């Protein structure tokens, strides 16, 4: 925010599925998921999918990285988990609850899913400046504490994704699985590795 008044952050940190499987070993095309209160599927990699972002010592990407495209039957979804939203100066958006089961295939996966908020680092950008200047780094423990320090300055933080909903979704999905209403799937195909984003260069100015 302009003049560093506050900082907002998305994802539920240590509960975020993509951060619990940072190598995308179990989440891929065809993975069955909790989608808006119904069962849905991962259909492709999402917009700005980028697996070349540097990772920290815990194996977590240090900035925006993997994203997913999903598909499901809207008529089976529930308004508790899907809502229209409007962000001032941005436009219409959607809040959709997604839960992804991650099978503990081996020790490596067990280590990945035990990730803690302090191990999840991310970059702080100034969206008030036209170039979105990088201001520093922080982690989810600090972000969720309500205050971060950037260049010696204290900045208030606020979430944009609902952590309480994320917990509800995790609980629901667990129930479905233990009631044998939801079966885990192996991805039909894994996501591409080492992808990156190309910039749009504006020519002839």
């Amino acid at each position: 925010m302009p003049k560093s008044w506050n900082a907002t952050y998305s994802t539920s940190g240590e509960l975020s599925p993509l951060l619990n499987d940072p190598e995308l070993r179990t989440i891929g095309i065809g993975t069955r998921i909790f989608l808006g209160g119904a069962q849905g599927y991962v259909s492709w990699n999402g917009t700005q999918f980028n697996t070349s972002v540097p990772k920290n010592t815990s194996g977590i990407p240090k900035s925006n990285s993997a994203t997913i495209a999903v598909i499901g039957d809207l008529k089976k979804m529930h308004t508790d988990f899907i809502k229209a939203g409007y962000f001032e100066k941005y436009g219409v958006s959607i809040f959709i609850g997604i839960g992804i089961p991650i099978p503990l295939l081996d020790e490596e996966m067990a280590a990945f899913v035990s990730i803690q908020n302090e191990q999840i680092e991310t970059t702080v950008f100034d969206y008030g400046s036209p170039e979105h200047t990088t201001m520093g780094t922080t982690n989810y423990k600090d972000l969720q504490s309500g205050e971060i320090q950037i260049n010696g300055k204290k900045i208030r933080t606020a979430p944009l994704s609902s952590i309480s909903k994320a917990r509800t979704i995790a609980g629901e999905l667990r129930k479905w699985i233990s009631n044998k209403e939801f079966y885990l799937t192996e991805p039909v195909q894994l996501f591409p590795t080492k992808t990156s984003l190309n910039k749009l260069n504006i020519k002839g100015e």
Partner: protein
Amino acid sequence: MKRRYVLTFPPEIVDEPITYNLIRNYDLKINILKAEINPGKEGNLLLEFESEKANLDKGINYLEEKNIACLPIEAKIRFDQQACIHCGSCTAVCFSRALTMHKLSWELIFEPEKCVACGLCVKACPLELFHLDF
């Protein structure tokens, strides 16, 4: 005790020193948090009163006699709590900390007694759950 009220002045009364009378005659400690007084038009005033309950009641009686509507702040800001998804967007803009996230449940806590009627949450909530009548 401390309580916040919004006073709504009918157009014909905006030139009377109401606040002065409240302080002088009813011994009320007053903090003005927001004011919108336009001569010839209806005016609004957000006040925080600090006083004994008896004096506050007398003061409010006086206001009612003068035809000034006096409503607690929570009656002026409407919030559709049922529909809240606890995303937290509104907590980013609420500098009086009337809106905060519960640190364990991560549910939104709304404490209208801390509200200063700035109206920033009205635009910040992506589900448009706040309505401010000021």
